[in-house]
């Protein structure tokens, strides 16, 4: 499978989608001008990955900030991984938040309430 590596900017996140090395990671800031276009290749990659996923997949979120338009897309991404889990594969979410960032912590907790995937929360 192709590896996707997107270098982040002040309004787009770093994205690593690497099936071979089993790294799926989102970090930085997400408030792209056009969220749908920005995340389209990411969604596409996950749909492809779902056809033959690794036995165990850990998805890492280490975001500093995301706007509400991104929050909807992040849920879509999580739901795609939930589908993979329903097919019998192991999925784990690592949700990182800055120690004093209650909003980011709460955002992770809310996602964990909506999707049926185990979350591990880490402050840094």
């Amino acid at each position, binding site marked *: 499978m192709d590896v996707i590596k997107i270098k982040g900017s002040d309004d787009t996140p770093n994205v690593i989608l690497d099936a071979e090395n089993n790294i799926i990671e989102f970090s930085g800031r997400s*408030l792209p001008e056009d969220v*749908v276009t920005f995340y389209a290749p990411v969604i596409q990659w996950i749909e492809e990955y779902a056809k033959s996923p690794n036995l165990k997949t850990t998805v890492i979120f280490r975001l500093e900030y995301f*706007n509400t*338009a991104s929050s909807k897309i992040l849920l879509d991404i999580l739901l795609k991984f939930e589908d993979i889990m329903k097919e019998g594969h192991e999925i784990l979410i690592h949700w990182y938040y800055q120690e004093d960032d209650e909003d980011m912590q709460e955002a992770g907790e809310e996602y964990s309430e909506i999707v049926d995937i185990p979350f591990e929360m880490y402050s840094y």
Partner: protein
Amino acid sequence: MENVDYMKLIYSFHQEMINYNFSLVYEGEITHQITKAFTSLAENKMDSYSEDISMKKKVFHVMVECLQNLSKHSEEHELRGRLGDSSGNGIFIVGRLGDNNEEYHVITGNPVDKNKVPDLKALLEKINQLDKEGLKELFKKQMREGSLSDKGGAGLGLIDIARKTGEKLEYHFHDMDDTNSFFLLRTKISRKIE
């Protein structure tokens, strides 16, 4: 207008901005580039007087969501402009209030189609009636059930603003003409919350 009157107008405009502590007033199209410029301007300014980090984050967050609402409107407006509507673009204001500057105000104003006013009012009233837990549930529901429009709006912005600030949304609809109302929204971000 006479030149002197015009210059006086500029002066009184300046005085009004100072009286009301408006640090930013903008009328016109809101693009992504402008959103980035305004938010980084505010960040730099807040850094310059060592604003605390949670306040900074809240102001940034509210500004992004407000500007995003306006930019969606700007695109609609452009479309309507081609159809001969001259209701104007939006206005965006940031002010700093209170005896110790403990409060930030982010104000937006834009014309909206009168047909859309009842739904918008209903949403605003609903948001203002909910407590912290209620807003959280509404946000989650909207995230699950809402779909992203072409412009990336997910109907989450207003809910999110109310959650992040812990304040009621202050709004007003001003009649413009047969088809448009001017929608004003004032968001307070206060250091006293938590």
